[in-house]
């Protein structure tokens, strides 16, 4: 009997609580945002995992919203996003790190994706060490200085060799081939995805220990940690260029990392659809510094992505007007 009573009383409490929530919620809400969409309609941009990509996407979003576009953001990884563009489910990727095989397949062969030209940012991948280590061992400026000194980078999992900390498996890389081609006594240790890699090297950085790792610019963490690059040989005997001759066969990639011009790519359907957003995105172009700043707002200062983008847009009207064709 008492059990049943308890159940019923419980229900009453829940019902009362619910009613309270409904009323309180209604009082608190009441911000129905009516979106004004003009002829532009909806534009779908793809944001990728790294902070630089978030910066591009949200700045473009802020600009497109100015002319009344509704902007959707998808978050699909680098390779599958090509199929998304082929299907017209994603309209634009604003930062593509030269996916040559995809260019061949989707742009040249299938014509389902079109090249949008550079976004103004130059990417660079390389081998980096903390600056305090560079001061301690000035010979690490170039790769020759590493020879014979590999054991400086010893770690528990590298045995008697030095540890080379590899990059995110999804990023462009050829460190194993480089280590082999240069005859360095490094063990390639993959710590996995970028957050894991960052966790590892920042931990060593904080302890002022030696570490050498795969890293790149533009990257917002470069504003936070002092890093120096180890010069790799540009070309050497047996070196083949990545995407000219060596394309396809990873075994032939032996050159140093290039400076990569980052491209915008668009869905063909979007490019031919006559959206007023297309010419704006086509003109979209900024510098490494711009991007790093916005990325730092977002990832370093933990500012909301939309607010970070609006902050930059407000401070850089001239650039934005150029994109808008004014």
């Amino acid at each position, binding site marked *: 009997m008492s059990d049943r009573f308890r*159940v019923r009383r*419980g*229900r009453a409490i*829940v*019902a009362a*609580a*619910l009613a309270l*929530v*409904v009323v309180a*919620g*209604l009082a*608190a*809400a009441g*911000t*129905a945002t009516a979106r004004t969409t003009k002829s532009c309609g909806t534009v779908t941009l793809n944001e990728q*995992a*790294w*902070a630089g990509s*978030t910066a591009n996407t949200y700045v473009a979003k802020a600009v497109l919203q100015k002319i009344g576009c509704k902007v959707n953001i*998808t*978050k*699909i*990884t*680098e*390779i*599958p996003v090509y*199929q*998304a563009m082929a*299907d017209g*489910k994603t309209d634009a990727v604003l930062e593509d790190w030269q*996916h040559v095989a995809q260019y061949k*397949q*989707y742009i040249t*062969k*299938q014509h389902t994706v079109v090249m949008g030209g550079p976004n103004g940012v130059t990417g660079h991948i390389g081998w980096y060490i903390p600056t305090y280590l560079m001061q301690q061992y000035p010979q690490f400026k170039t790769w020759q200085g590493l020879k014979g000194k590999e054991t400086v980078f010893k770690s*528990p*999992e590298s045995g008697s060799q030095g540890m080379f900390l590899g990059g995110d*498996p*999804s*990023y*462009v890389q050829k460190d194993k081939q480089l280590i082999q081609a240069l005859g360095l006594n490094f063990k390639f*240790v*993959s*710590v*996995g*995805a*970028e*957050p*894991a890699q960052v*966790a*590892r090297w*920042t*931990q*060593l950085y*904080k302890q002022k220990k030696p570490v050498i790792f795969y890293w790149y610019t533009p990257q917002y963490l470069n504003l936070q940690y002092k890093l120096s690059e180890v010069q790799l040989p540009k070309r050497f005997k047996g070196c083949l260029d990545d995407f000219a001759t060596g394309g396809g066969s*990873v075994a032939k990639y032996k050159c140093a990392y290039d400076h990569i011009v980052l491209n915008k790519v668009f869905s063909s359907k979007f490019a031919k659809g006559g959206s007023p957003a297309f010419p704006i995105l086509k003109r979209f172009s900024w510098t490494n510094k711009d991007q790093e700043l916005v*990325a730092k707002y*977002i*990832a370093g200062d*933990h500012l909301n992505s939309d607010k970070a983008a609006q902050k930059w847009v407000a401070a850089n009207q001239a650039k934005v007007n150029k994109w808008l064709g004014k």
Partner: protein
Amino acid sequence: MSAATDYAAPAATIPAAHPWWRGRVGLVVGVALAMLVGYLGWKSTLPWSNRLVWNSLTSYLDRFQTWLSDSRNTPHPNFVFAIFNGFATFLDNLVSWFTTFFEKLTWVGTVALGTLVVLRFGRWQQAVGVLAAFASFALMGLWEQSVQTFALIFAAVGLSLVVGMPLGVIAGRSDRFLRFLTPLLDAAQIVPAFAYLMPVVILFSVGPGAAVLTTMIYAIPPAIRITALGIRGVPVNTVEAAAAMGSTRWQTVAKVQLPLARRMLLLAVNQTILFALSMVVIAGLIGGAGLGDVVTSGLYSNPALAILGGVAIVIMAIALDRSTESMANRTDPARRHLTDDKKLRLRLFTLASVAGVGLAVGLGHAFGAGGIYSGRTAQDWLLRSVQKGLDYVQNPSTWIFHITEPTGNFIVQRGLEPLTNFFVETPWPVMFVGIVAIAFLVSGLRPAAITAIMFATIGVTGEWATSMGTLSQVLIATLITIGVGVALGVWAAESRIVDRILRPINDVLQTLPQLVYIIPFIYLMPVSQVPGIVASVLYAVPVVIRLVASGLREVSPDTVEAAGAFGATRRQVLLKVKIPLARDAIMLGVNQGIIMVLAVVVIAGLVGSGGLGYEVAQGLQRNAFGLGVVASVAILALGIALDRTTRGRARARRERAL
């Protein structure tokens, strides 16, 4: 089979005078020692020869993907693609229909609907839980993402059960069908989603549809397996009695087997939900939207946000789990004894609930509440607090770090590295013969033959060295998992308190995306493989605990009472009665433990285990489809070999009994 032989079957399972391991343990140790001699004497002299590798396999696979993409993306793809396209569109529409439905209800209406449904069919405590879950999504500022994820899960779980349960019933009634299905289920659970994500994307494009499909591939196997186990758990004499009364086959299934297997069917629903939620993050990679996105993109630029996203997934999992369970219990016809008076009251309550939802929706629209909760949130404050915690963990001068770092180093230097070296550097013929011999000694001829085929496959695909590295990690993770899992499972079955404590922990571990909780471990134990092993163990242990505990609880109370009446102590009852009778469930637990460890190999690769997992991840993301598939095949082969080795004897015994 007659009832008499069936009755005799449990008697045969009582340990013989000479337990199998007494003779074999010695032999297995002998084989291991011989392998050790091989390792010490001929260290890295004989790696798998390149001549024994099918080198062109990866490029064939790559060409297959290119062909698939080219023929799909022409202006007029053929009808096969049109079918896939139609199916994807159907799934897309289904998910977006659910999402818009919730948005149309306004957030107030959604809260009212969720709470009142649980209140009407479940217990009021769970309704409070649902209300709290909604409140937490609103507080965390993740309302929209949570609704998207819920719509996705709702569609995926519904379809998984629609497909899985009938197959499970058939598999429960037919041994042949079960035998046919088992390798497929193993494959679906072990082959990492990363490997088939790209073909799925080419066939079904990106978006919620593809995400639902990927989730289903992973969530259907537990639905089938547990349903089948439930049907098989129905006492044979009951089924025979039904047949003797003249039931048709359909009547036997619907009126006897399904109702009696109710508990296991509910476990199936429950596990399907949890499995589906554990795919949310991967679904986020191909446009699944929702909380998965929050986790993946948060990890790169705002780890605190990723943690909030992970917490939201866990809250959703626990709320769904508890409320489905309470609804199932309260609607259990065996416990309900409805009087007319009660029926009337329930009907009134239903009417009141419908009216309540209607009222809430009406009010929501009248006051202009959005489809998404847009009021004040505590997100900023939560993010700051979480970030503080992360900063503390990241600080290498705290006392925790001074304990965890040496521990991690010790595990790697004294445990993992030597073991990996042993596996990788032993001449391959020695390793091959040794493993097959152990499989033969432990499980018999058939499993040994399968093991041999699997390891040969690994060699031919050119993954020998990588696989041996992964194998050593999987072995360590599996041993820890089974040790911890069986012990805790037995304890949970024996003690209600332990069960109460373990349940929420298990839910959290199974549904919190591994990448979220593993990041702190990377800071604390900065050596690459350890976080990967921690991830595998934490993910696999809950399933082992659950299956072991539920198997022990299913043991008939009469038998336990009888044993007690004969003067058996609690310990004797446990060791001589309960565990032998629950052996099937325990073995299923062990078996699933291995499969779960392998399912996390890719995630482990993403947090530093390297090996096969890293290659699979690269396969998707660096457009090395062939490499990814080959590495997945190696993972699958490892899984089947380990699975058959551990399951061989139980199965052989069952087959003899048939």
